[in-house]
């Protein structure tokens, strides 16, 4: 393992890769700051560029963009209460009140230091956890993979949508259905192509990602503009960026706890940065001594440090299932999975053996990336924040342009552009009807893998469903999936029951 690690260190410290980390962090921060654009859009916009620079550099760039975007999302959460990323919503609970009190600089510094610590602790844990899990996962069968993906899909539906579980499930199945378009990889049969040759290869993941996130988010800003946030943008002085000894003493325990919690949640498929940040916030609020508790929601430093540490650690944690099992735990890592496959690499337990340079250089580059975020991005924040005062009309049209040209640069086919516009219109309507988008993307990307593994499992068991309960591991994962699926339904029914008993006619 040490030799492989050294290969990664060598690759990560090549000057061009160091540059990609810096560029990735800066671009990610810049895009993550824009309200409405998150890491998925940022990474999707990078894909055409990564195709020309090789897998290690490409993954390093995308990883840099990922944690840069999370960091950038915190900035817009704190400064204008408009999180660019769902994972930084919890940061706005106390970050924005701090900014309103004239402590925007301090809030940004707390966010940066907490993110740095969370990311670094996460990278250390990733270094230990990834090889171990990769070894364990070598013993996984196709059936285990099907069940793991099933857990991922149900978990993201159960956790991602503020109680709108049924809507999330509809979107997940919609994504799975879209993944069946094109030639069936096992038999070669055409499915849902309607005689259209452009559909034979199926829909590209980049097209779906761009349509459902970048394009529809930009269109959403046109159809439902948020005037208040537009007016707040870029106002005022940021104040001092210095942290006192007292501040550090106050936030240090929260950052430590939240980093570990964030990493563990990030590893779970379907959970990710958003849940990690909310759980860390809730945990800190419960654990806080009475004198700090009352400050939560009013500008508590712990309330800002905890979700920041947790969301960065969770980002790092989400690389564990991606690199070791080849299963993305979130929409963002799903895009990275698509990119790895496009490079001709097979993410999964063998990635560490077959491509140690890719595997380890991504992990090693994370240390450097976290340092870049701290020493480069933090001082640049006052300048980067100027992007928030860019006129909305210009920004929206630029986003539309980058999304369209990003897809065109990969396929060089205008049919894809028309398809993307069509999907963006559907996504816009669904957004207006408050349907969540992430489950659709995850369903779409996992659909193909689920089908292949399901068919393999059925073939191995000679057409019987025995594989579901023959191995304790498969059965355990299956039970977890069922529990994750039914808990929200029980919650809904219990809520209904309580309502009925509480309001007798």
């Amino acid at each position, binding site marked *: 393992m040490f030799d492989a690690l050294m290969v990664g260190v060598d690759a990560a410290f090549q000057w061009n890769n160091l540059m990609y980390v810096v560029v990735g962090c800066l671009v990610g921060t810049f895009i993550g700051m824009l309200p409405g654009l998150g890491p998925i859009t940022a990474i999707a916009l990078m894909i*055409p560029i990564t195709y*020309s620079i090789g897998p290690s550099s490409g993954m390093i760039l995308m990883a840099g963009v990922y944690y840069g975007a999370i960091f950038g999302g915190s900035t817009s959460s704190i400064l204008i209460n408009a999180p660019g990323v769902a994972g930084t919503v919890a940061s706005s609970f106390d970050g924005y009140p701090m900014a309103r009190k004239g402590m925007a600089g301090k809030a940004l510094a707390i966010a940066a230091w907490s993110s740095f610590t969370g990311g670094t602790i996460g990278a250390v844990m990733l270094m230990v956890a990834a090889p171990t899990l990769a070894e364990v996962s070598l013993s996984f069968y196709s059936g285990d993979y099907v069940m793991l993906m099933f857990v991922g899909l149900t978990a993201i539906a159960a956790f991602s949508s503020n109680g709108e579980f*049924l*809507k999330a*499930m*509809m979107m997940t*199945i*919609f994504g*799975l*259905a879209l993944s*069946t378009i094109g030639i*069936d990889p*096992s*038999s*070669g*049969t055409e*499915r*849902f192509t309607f005689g259209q040759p452009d559909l034979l290869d199926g829909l590209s993941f980049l097209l779906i990602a761009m349509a459902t996130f970048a394009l529809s988010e930009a*269109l959403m800003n*046109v*159809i*439902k*503009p948020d005037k208040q946030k537009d007016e707040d943008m870029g106002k005022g002085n940021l104040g001092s960026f210095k942290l006192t000894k007292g501040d550090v003493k106050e936030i240090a325990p929260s950052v430590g706890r939240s980093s570990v919690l964030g990493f563990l949640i990030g590893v779970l498929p379907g959970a990710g940065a958003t849940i990690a940040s909310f759980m860390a916030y809730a945990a800190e609020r419960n654990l806080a001594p009475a004198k700090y508790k009352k400050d939560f929601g009013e500008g508590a430093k712990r309330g800002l440090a905890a979700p920041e540490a947790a969301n960065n650690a969770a980002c790092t944690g989400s690389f564990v299932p991606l690199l070791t099992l080849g299963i993305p735990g979130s929409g963002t890592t799903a895009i990275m999975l698509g990119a790895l496959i496009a490079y001709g690499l097979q993410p999964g337990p063998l990635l560490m053996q077959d491509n140690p340079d890719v595997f380890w250089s991504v992990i090693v580059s994370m240390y450097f990336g976290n340092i870049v975020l701290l020493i480069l991005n933090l001082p640049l924040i006052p300048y980067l924040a100027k992007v928030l005062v860019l*006129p*909305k*009309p*210009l920004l*929206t*049209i*630029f986003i*539309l*342009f980058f999304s*369209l*040209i990003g897809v*065109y*640069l990969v396929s*060089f086919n*205008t049919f894809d*552009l*028309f398809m993307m*516009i069509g999907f*963006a*219109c559907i996504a*816009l309507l*669904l957004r*207006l*009807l*408050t349907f969540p988008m992430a489950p659709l993307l995850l369903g779409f990307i996992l659909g193909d893998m*689920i*089908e292949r593994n*399901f*068919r393999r499992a*059925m*073939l191995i068991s*000679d*057409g*019987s469903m025995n594989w579901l309960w023959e191995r304790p591991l498969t059965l355990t994962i299956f039970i977890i999936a069922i529990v994750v699926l039914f808990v929200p339904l029980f919650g*809904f029914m219990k809520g*209904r029951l309580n*309502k009925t008993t509480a309001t007798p006619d």
Partner: protein
Amino acid sequence: MLLRFVLGPLLFLMFFTVYGIYAWQIPLLPFEQYEAVDSSTLPKIYAGLGVIFSFLGVIAQYIKYRDEGDDHAPLGLKKENIKTIALVILLMVIYSALLEPLGFIVSTLLFLIAGFWVMGERRGRILLLSSVPMVVIFWLVMTQLLDIYLAAGTFWS
């Protein structure tokens, strides 16, 4: 209005029904007919699950409407915003159609200027300053630095 609440699940119910009908019509190859899982198995499962969840969704949304009334209804858009979005979508369609015939530089310039105009920007200087340098820099980075091909325009060649 009840329709606003149940519109989403209803659309999904229709989609999954049509998807299911097509799933049952997927032509199977001769060797597939004796297999436990064929090309149409998972589409059929997805269609079934989709119909079940969207039907449950219609019921859940109806209950929500009954409990909360119109106050929390989704949609609710302003007419001028609908007009703007329709124009922006139309622009994207025209840009996609003109990208190859007119080439990257001309079509993108037209798209950006028209887009800024539709979004309410009327100052000529801003229209030009925010589009021309952007297009030129992007073109230089892509074609000269990264060696990525951009459509030159069939109309000009």
